[in-house]
C-alpha cells in the first residue's frame, strides 16, 4: 500500500480551503439526511470560485432544486459545466470552472460492460440478460461499486483538477469503501467457478453432488442455469473487472484522495459519523475533515439570553403592561402571550443548542479539520444559497 501522509496537519492545512486545494479527489460520506450532497456541491463551488482550476462535483441523487441550481435538471451521466451566470447570480466571479454530473447507475453499468466486453455478441447478450438488468438496476451494492468506478474513470481521464464526490446512501456505512474489493472477490471466487462447472461440462452429474441437490431444491434448476449463463458470459470480463476494482481501491487509498465525513450534531447521525471516521482511519485512508451541518447558532447559548428569556416568560404580565404604550398595542393579554412564547422558545432552542455543544466537545476525531456550519433558516434552492453554505464551510 502507498505510504500515508502523516495524520498531523502540516502547516497551511487545517481548513477545508487548504484540504481541497491539496487534493485531487474529495469523497464526502456520512449518514443520510445530513446535507451530504449539498455540502459536496457547496465545497466544489467554493473550490472553483476561490481556488480556480476545473472542479467537478459528482452527485448521486441531488434535490431537485439543487440540481436546478447547478443547471443539472434532466441531465444524466455526462458532466456539464455550471455556467458563469450561476456564479454571477450569487455575485461571484469564479477563478476556475465548475462542472457537475449526476450518477446514473444503470447507464454507468452499461458503459462498463461495453468497455470490458471482449466482443459485440457477449456485450449484447449481457446487456439483454434479465439477471444483469436486475443486478445493475436494483442490486444495492452495485450503486456503491459504480460510484467508485465512475470516480476512477473520470479521474483517469485527467480532465479535472479536483473531483468532489458524493456517496450514495448505504445500508451499511462502509459498503461503498468495500464495494470494489468485494466485487473483485466476488468475481474471482472459487465458489463462482464451482457453481458454473456443471453448466460448462455436461460430464458432471448435477444430481450427484449434495451441494447442487440443496441449491436445486431451494432455487430451482432454471434459476441456477440462469445464474450460470450470466456468469459464463461475465467470465470473459473477470480479469478486466478485477484489475479495475483493485485500481479503484488503490486510488481511494492514494494520498491524492481525502475523505470528509458530514454529519449533524443529532445523536444518531453523529454516532454513525464517528463510526465512519473511525473506519476510514482504520483502513489507512485519509480523513481530511469532519463537517458538522445545521449547527444551532451560538447566540442560543448566551447566558444573558437565558436570563432575558426567563424574565420575559415569568414576568410577562408586568412587562406587557409596561411596554404596551411603546408598542401602541392595547391588548396586553396578547402581548403577554407573545412574551411567554418568545421566552419559552429561547429556552427550548437553548436546550438543544447546549446539548449540541456538549456533543461537539465530546467528539473524538482524528480529522485535521473540524468545521461547523450554522443552521440556515431556509433551504438551499439557488446558487446564491449554495455559495452561502460554501462560505460557512470556509469558516466565513
Amino acid at each position, binding site marked *: 500500500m502507498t505510504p500515508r501522509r502523516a495524520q498531523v496537519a502540516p502547516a497551511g492545512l487545517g481548513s477545508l480551503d487548504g484540504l481541497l486545494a491539496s487534493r485531487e479527489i474529495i469523497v464526502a460520506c456520512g449518514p443520510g439526511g445530513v446535507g451530504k450532497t449539498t455540502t459536496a456541491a457547496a465545497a466544489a463551488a467554493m473550490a472553483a470560485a476561490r481556488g480556480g482550476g476545473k472542479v467537478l462535483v459528482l452527485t448521486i441523487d441531488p434535490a431537485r432544486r439543487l440540481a436546478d441550481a447547478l443547471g443539472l435538471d434532466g441531465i444524466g451521466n455526462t458532466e456539464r459545466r455550471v455556467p458563469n451566470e450561476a456564479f454571477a447570480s450569487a455575485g461571484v466571479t469564479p477563478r476556475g470552472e465548475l462542472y457537475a454530473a449526476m450518477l446514473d447507475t444503470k447507464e454507468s453499468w452499461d458503459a462498463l460492460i461495453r468497455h470490458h466486453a471482449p466482443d459485440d455478441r457477449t456485450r449484447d447478450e449481457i446487456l439483454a440478460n434479465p439477471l444483469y438488468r436486475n443486478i445493475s438496476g436494483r442490486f444495492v451494492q452495485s450503486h456503491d461499486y459504480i460510484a467508485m468506478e465512475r470516480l476512477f474513470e473520470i479521474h483517469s481521464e485527467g480532465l479535472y483538477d479536483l473531483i468532489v464526490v458524493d456517496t450514495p446512501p448505504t*445500508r451499511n456505512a462502509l459498503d461503498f469503501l468495500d464495494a470494489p474489493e468485494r466485487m473483485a472477490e466476488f468475481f474471482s471466487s472459487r465458489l463462482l467457478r464451482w*457453481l458454473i462447472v456443471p453448466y460448462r461440462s455436461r460430464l458432471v452429474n448435477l444430481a450427484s453432488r449434495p451441494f447442487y441437490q440443496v441449491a436445486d431444491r431451494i432455487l430451482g434448476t432454471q*434459476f441456477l442455469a440462469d445464474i450460470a449463463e450470466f456468469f459464463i458470459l461475465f467470465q470473459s470480463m473477470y480479469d478486466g473487472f478485477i484489475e479495475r476494482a483493485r485500481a479503484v481501491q488503490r486510488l481511494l487509498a492514494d494520498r491524492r484522495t481525502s475523505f470528509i465525513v458530514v454529519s449533524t450534531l443529532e445523536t444518531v447521525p453523529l454516532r454513525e459519523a464517528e463510526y465512519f471516521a473511525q473506519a476510514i482511519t482504520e483502513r489507512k485512508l485519509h480523513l481530511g475533515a469532519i463537517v458538522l451541518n445545521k449547527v444551532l447558532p451560538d447566540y442560543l447559548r448566551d447566558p444573558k439570553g437565558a436570563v432575558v428569556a426567563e*424574565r420575559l416568560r415569568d414576568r410577562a404580565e408586568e412587562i406587557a403592561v409596561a411596554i404596551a404604550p411603546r408598542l*401602541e398595542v392595547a391588548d396586553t393579554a396578547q402581548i403577554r402571550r407573545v412574551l411567554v*412564547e418568545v421566552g419559552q422558545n429561547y429556552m427550548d432552542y437553548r436546550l438543544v443548542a447546549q446539548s449540541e455543544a456538549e456533543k461537539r466537545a465530546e467528539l473524538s476525531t482524528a480529522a485535521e479539520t473540524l468545521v461547523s456550519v450554522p443552521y440556515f433558516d431556509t433551504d438551499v434552492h439557488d446558487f446564491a444559497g449554495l455559495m452561502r453554505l460554501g462560505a460557512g464551510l470556509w469558516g466565513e
Partner: protein
Amino acid sequence: MVGLLDRRLVFVTGKGGVGKTTVAAALALFASEHGRRTLLCEVDAKGDVASFLETGPTAFTASEAMPGLWAMSMDTEASLREYLRLNLRIPVVGRIGPLARAFDFVATAAPGVREILTVGKLCYEVRERHYDLVVVDAPATGHIIGQLAAPQAINELVKVGLIRSQTDWMLDILSDPQQTAVAIVTTPEEMPVNETIELVDRIKKETTVELASVIVNRVLPELFGRSEEEVFDRLCGDDATEELTRLAGEDPAPVLTAARLAVTLRRTNAGHLEHLRSAVDPTVPMLYLPFLFARFHGLRSIRQVARSLGEELGF
C-alpha cells in the same frame, strides 16, 4: 381504513435521518402498552433499536425487551437456516459451511434473495400468530420497494423450486390490507418530503402493500397567530428596544433573534408540508409528531413520541 394498530404487520420506512427507528420503536411501544403482543424487528441491524429501548443488543431470536414487547434484528443467514430447519429438515449444522458460502454467493448475485428471507421471516411470524402485531423498522426509502416487492420479483425470476412455492402465501399476507400496511415517516423538510411523494407513488405502482399513513416527525410548534406576529414585529422595532432592554434587564436581541429563527423555520416547513399534503392522496391519513426540544435520548424520548403518536391515532 383499518387502524395502524389493528393490522398484523406494519413496515415503517422513510428517508435516512427522519427518525424512522424512533417512530417504529414508539409505535411498537404504544401497541404493547395497549395490549398487543408486539414484535419490533430492526432490518438494518445497526443496533439503533437496542439503544432506543435501552436493552442489550438484539439478535435474530426475539427477546422480551419490555412486558409485551419483543425485539429482534434481522439476519438473513439465520433466517435461511431457520427456513431450512423448518421446511426441508436438512441437517443444517453439518453443512452450514459450504451452505453459508453458497448463500452469500446467491444472495449477492440474485437480487431479491436477501429480501425474500427478510420478508419471509416477518410473514412467517404473522402466519404463525406468534404476535398480535409485527412492527418493522424497515429499510430506508431507497430499499423498501425492493423488499416489499421481493415475492413478486422472485415469482418472475424463479420459475420452480421451493422458494417459488413459498412466495404465494407471503403475497397473500402482504397484499391483504386487513393485515399488512406500510407507514412512511418524513420530516417537514425538502428532501424528505420529495422522497415521500415519490415513494407513495412507487408503493402504489410497484407493490401490493397498502400505505396506511404518512407520519410527519419533528413538526415545529407555531409560535404566534397572525395578530400576535404583528405584536412581535413591534417588539423587535427600534421604538421598543430601549424599553424592552430596561424591562428585561439585558439586551433582548438573542431572544428575539431566536424567535425570528423559529418563525422562519416553521414557515419554511409549512411550505413543504403543504406540498406534501397536496401531492398525497387525501384518503391517506397524516399523523403529526412534534419536534422534541430535549437533550435526552433513548427510552424517555421514545415514550414521548409514543404518547404523541397515541394522541394522533385517536387514543
